[in-house]
């Protein structure tokens, strides 16, 4: 019927004339890919380098600390400190006496209404008693001071020989073998050096017995004090009796003391983690115990979170569930803007304004029921914690709000459909559903707070001591030092490579592990307890 035409193949016009641009054998796509991949790689490498650096600088601390503790023992400082304990215990008893005197003075002048002069006159016999009690330690004290000098001399001798050893090492490293060999190193013979110290034991025993007798005699007297204070006087007496009862034990300890046992390696670690004293640049003995710093950091964080969690989470619930769109547009940027303040500005605000005003507020009489009020120091845990709360609020708010946003709509709608009110839905449905997210928001806020440096350095008061928890919450109005603060304060002036320098790095390592743990748990909680959508 018709002829079948065979379709002619159309000449292809798709010939690619332009050759793709290649640079070093890479196309543009490859280059872009390599760029992004490289960025990620750089981040990983930098992180690895920082971690490596931190560990490299910090790790030799434990060896140095072990040597530090070993010298403490070998040079007899440990022995002398057993004697020193007697002296410090006695001074604290003397302090009890002087606080008794103060109470008596207040009693005479207020309850009995006699003039200051007469009261002082009335207390003259007591003063005499207190003075005799205080002076009883004198022979012991002079013995202690001799012992201290001897032990310090041994320690210095050892330090000098270590320095010489270092010098030889340095010269050898420079390749100056003859000069290195010429460096004279005196080895310290601890056994011989310790003889003068250990030789004082009979003298100590004699002194200690006379001391005990003298105190016993003093305890048999009864100084005149107002009736109301007799109970306290009795407490003092029983304390003093225990003290005297302990003296023979001290003698036994001194007899049993031996300089030879080596300090086990784990002590270098435990003395850092559980050490209750951070004492540097001491003429006697440096101690690197992280507990006061850790406690300080944690206390500041507790205050900050106690304030920031209700504000942050509350604001998030309001903005996400209750606020009108106009309110949302206003509130969200406002809260997020707080984090735009540099922390040093907040720190100055704390020094200049908040510290003073908190203290004058604490002096208002009707607030005296609050534990710790009136505040003695204007820079303390509370001041720093209040400011840190400001930093934590935006973090907690943003993340908690995200968590609330992620709650499936269906849950809320089902709740409304069953006739629940809006408040019931929020409390019983939305918040529990978002709880894992909220908890991880709080944890991340905690991470933000514990790593903050400038505010705690300026406002926490920098007292390296564990606060006195015997007064309960009053401890939160005392100054503390923190882990971040001590690194910032001491790193600048410390000798590179010294044990102090290494100790600061180990504090940094501890902080690193803390942050790591906090972030890990935040992630884990979100993953584990997230309500599956759908």
């Amino acid at each position, binding site marked *: 019927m018709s002829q079948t035409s065979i379709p002619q193949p159309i000449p292809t016009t798709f010939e690619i004339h332009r050759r793709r641009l290649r640079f070093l054998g890479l196309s543009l796509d490859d280059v872009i890919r390599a760029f992004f991949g490289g960025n990620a790689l750089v981040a990983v490498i930098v992180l690895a380098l920082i971690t490596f650096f931190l560990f490299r600088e910090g790790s030799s601390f434990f060896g140095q600390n072990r040597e530090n503790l070993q010298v403490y023992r070998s040079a007899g400082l440990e022995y002398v400190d057993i004697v020193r304990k007697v002296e410090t215990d006695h*001074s604290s008893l003397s*302090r009890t006496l*002087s*606080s008794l005197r*103060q109470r008596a*003075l207040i009693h005479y002048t207020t309850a009995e209404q006699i003039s200051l002069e007469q009261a002082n006159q009335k207390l003259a016999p007591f003063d005499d008693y207190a003075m005799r009690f205080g002076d009883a330690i004198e022979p012991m004290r002079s013995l202690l001071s001799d012992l201290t000098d001897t032990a310090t001399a041994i320690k210095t001798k050892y330090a000098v020989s270590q320095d010489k050893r270092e010098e030889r090492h340095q010269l050898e490293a420079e390749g100056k073998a003859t000069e290195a060999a010429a460096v004279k190193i005196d080895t310290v013979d601890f056994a011989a050096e310790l003889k003068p110290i250990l030789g004082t034991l009979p003298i100590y025993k004699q002194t200690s017995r006379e001391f005990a007798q003298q105190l016993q005699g003093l305890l048999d007297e009864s100084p005149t004090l107002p009736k109301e204070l007799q109970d306290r006087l009795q407490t003092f007496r029983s304390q003093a009796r225990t003290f005297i009862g302990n003296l023979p034990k001290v003698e036994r300890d001194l007899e049993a003391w031996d300089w030879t046992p080596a300090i086990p390696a784990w002590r270098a670690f435990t003395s850092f983690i559980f050490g209750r*004293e951070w*004492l*540097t*640049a*001491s*003429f*006697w003995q440096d101690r690197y115990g992280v507990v006061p710093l850790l406690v300080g950091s944690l206390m500041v964080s507790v205050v900050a979170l106690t304030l920031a969690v209700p504000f942050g989470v509350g604001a998030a619930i309001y903005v996400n569930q209750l606020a009108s769109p106009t309110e949302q547009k206003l509130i969200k940027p406002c809260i997020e803007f707080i984090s735009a303040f540099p922390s040093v500005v907040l720190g100055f605000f704390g*020094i200049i304004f908040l510290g*003073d005003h908190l203290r004058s507020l604490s002096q208002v009489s009707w607030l005296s029921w609050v534990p710790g009020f009136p505040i*003695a*120091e*204007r*820079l303390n845990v509370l001041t720093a914690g209040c400011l840190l709360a400001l930093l934590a609020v935006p973090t907690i708010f943003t993340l908690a709000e995200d968590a609330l946003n992620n709650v499936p709509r269906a849950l809320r709608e089902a709740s409304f459909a069953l006739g629940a009110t809006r408040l019931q839905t929020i409390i019983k449905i939305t918040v529990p559903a978002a709880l894992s997210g909220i908890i991880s928001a709080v944890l991340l806020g905690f991470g933000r707070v514990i790593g903050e440096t400038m505010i705690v*350095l300026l406002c926490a*008061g*920098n*007292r*390296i*001591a564990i606060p006195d928890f015997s007064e309960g919450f009053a401890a939160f109005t005392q*100054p503390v*030092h923190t882990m971040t603060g001590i690194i910032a*304060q*001491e790193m*600048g*002036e*410390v000798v590179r490579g010294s044990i*102090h320098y290494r100790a600061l790095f180990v504090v940094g390592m501890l902080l690193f592990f803390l942050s790591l743990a906090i972030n890990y748990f935040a992630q884990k909680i979100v993953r584990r307890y997230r309500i599956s959508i759908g």
Partner: protein
Amino acid sequence: MKKLIFFAAALLAATSVQAQKLVIKGSDTLGAKLVPQLAEEYKARNPGVSFEIAAEGSTTGIAAITDGTAQIGMSSRRAKPTEMSAAQAKGVTLKPTIVAFDAIAVVVNSGNPLSTLTKRQIEQIFAGDIIDWSAVGGSPGKISIYTRNTSSGTYSDFKELAMKKRDYASSSQKMAGHEAIAAEVGRNPNGIGYVGLAYMDSPGIKVVPIDGATPSKESVLAKKYPYARPTFYYTNGEATGEAAKFLDFTLGEEGQKIAGKVGFVPIR
């Protein structure tokens, strides 16, 4: 090309020969602020002089003179007998020259009724034996102690001068600088602290006389004030050349003015 490099090297060598280099080593008390400032001022007047200042402690200063590795050794103490003998063995005579006095003032809040404290009381307060103002004749209140931070030179200087090398009470608060101590003591009625003489006039604080002596130029020079000590330049015999000129400059009117400005007590 080779010629050019040779020429540059020759030029470099020529200038380095021409430039006088003064090596000063020793105490960080002097080396932290005073000597670098003196050096800057001196350089401005005498172009071509360069300085190498290393502040690593008095011991290194005296050792540097003994070993001949520095022209001037800074020291915040006199040379010890062993150091003198070591120098003599090498044929070096250690000659001290007092540069300025370093003094530390003890300050309390201006509302504090105390009028004086003894050396023993200061030691007891800072070491934590005395914890209440009533024990030293003040109005009752817990003492708040403010000190410098642990790595500061003044921190250990004060321990040495005032506390028989004992450690500070653990209740002491470590402040970043002298002005921070002055500010805290000025705001805390129960505060006590120490500052360099340059900060004595800060608002809200008053200086406590120690055993009746107030820190001032006169009392320090008359050796009445206990918390002061001379600081020294050590040289090998009489200083010569550039070192002698720098020494004269330090002791001259200009140098002493700078010393006063950075918180030292001038010698005249």
